[in-house]
């Protein structure tokens, strides 16, 4: 699962930055095309919901999505990572 902020809905209130226990949401620094500073995501793969929702079969935490007054935060399905061959150099 992948955490995404819907830029067409976010109004830049930064409430999500106050509730995430992992501080994944950070105040943004760049205006988007609607003139809104959308928060940026700091290593979103740490989000327990991204990692464990499938495993537990229910939503975990989810405080950011609940508090987001503009319904802009959601989790999207993600394609499994493609396997690549890693050459390890000694």
């Amino acid at each position: 699962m992948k955490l995404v902020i819907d830029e067409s809905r976010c109004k830049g209130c930064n409430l999500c930055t106050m509730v995430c226990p992992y501080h994944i949401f950070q105040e943004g620094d760049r205006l988007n095309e609607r003139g809104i500073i959308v928060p940026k995501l700091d290593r979103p793969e740490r989000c327990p919901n991204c990692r464990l929702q499938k495993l537990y079969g229910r939503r975990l935490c989810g405080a950011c999505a609940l508090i987001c007054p503009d319904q802009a935060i959601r989790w999207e399905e993600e394609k499994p990572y493609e396997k690549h061959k890693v050459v390890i150099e000694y």
Partner: protein
Amino acid sequence: MTFMDWYREDRLPHIYCTGCGNGTVINCTLEAVEQMGWAVDDTVFISGIGCSSRAPGYIKTDSLHTTHGRALAFATGVKLANPRLNVVVFTGDGDLAAIGGNHFIHACRRNVDLTVVCMNNMIYGMTGGQGSPCTPVGAISTTTPYGAVEPVFDLSELAVTAGANYVARWTSYHVKELTKAVKDGLETPGFSFIEALTQCPTAYGRRNKLRQVSDMINYMRTNVILIQKKQRMLERGEAVPEEKIPVGEFVRRNRPAMGVPK
């Protein structure tokens, strides 16, 4: 399904200002409704007039956006005429406590099987920030430019006294607790009242030295006290600071109720 599936996606984004807590309260209510496993077709959302009352327009179910203060009377009609429907009312402090005060106490007294979610932002937001019956003493609004002088209504205490079966108060910062409280309210037969203190940065915070959304959130986070803790403090004879707002479950009881499906 999640609470997002209850929204009319074609109506979003909604009209609320940046940082308004109403969207959060709708999320929590819909999450609770979703946890109840109710069907979209059997649920009706009803509201009066004001910021809070625009909420049903963004929800997929049948919904009634009525006149100022009268939402509870309309809801009484819907519920009594068809008890099979699950009725949830969104209202605000001005809508419920000022113009709809009479309907509020009588709906509590009748104990009609409704769940009422009151978004108390302590101000009239839609009309631009006039003082409401819940504006704290000393707060600045456009109609109280020298600070509010009238004592405030404690809506939750009022609902307890008037006879509601379930009463709880939380804030739009305490999303998990608020969701749980709404769910408890939906489960309780009879009149359930959940007061959600919400931030209004545009009309309230801006004039009251809480200009940033985070300031208002911090105000709500630091100024609440769990009602059980307050009672313990009172029992021990300790002084409870006056500005502390008690939150939590005020009452849960099983008085005879009207409009409960047989």
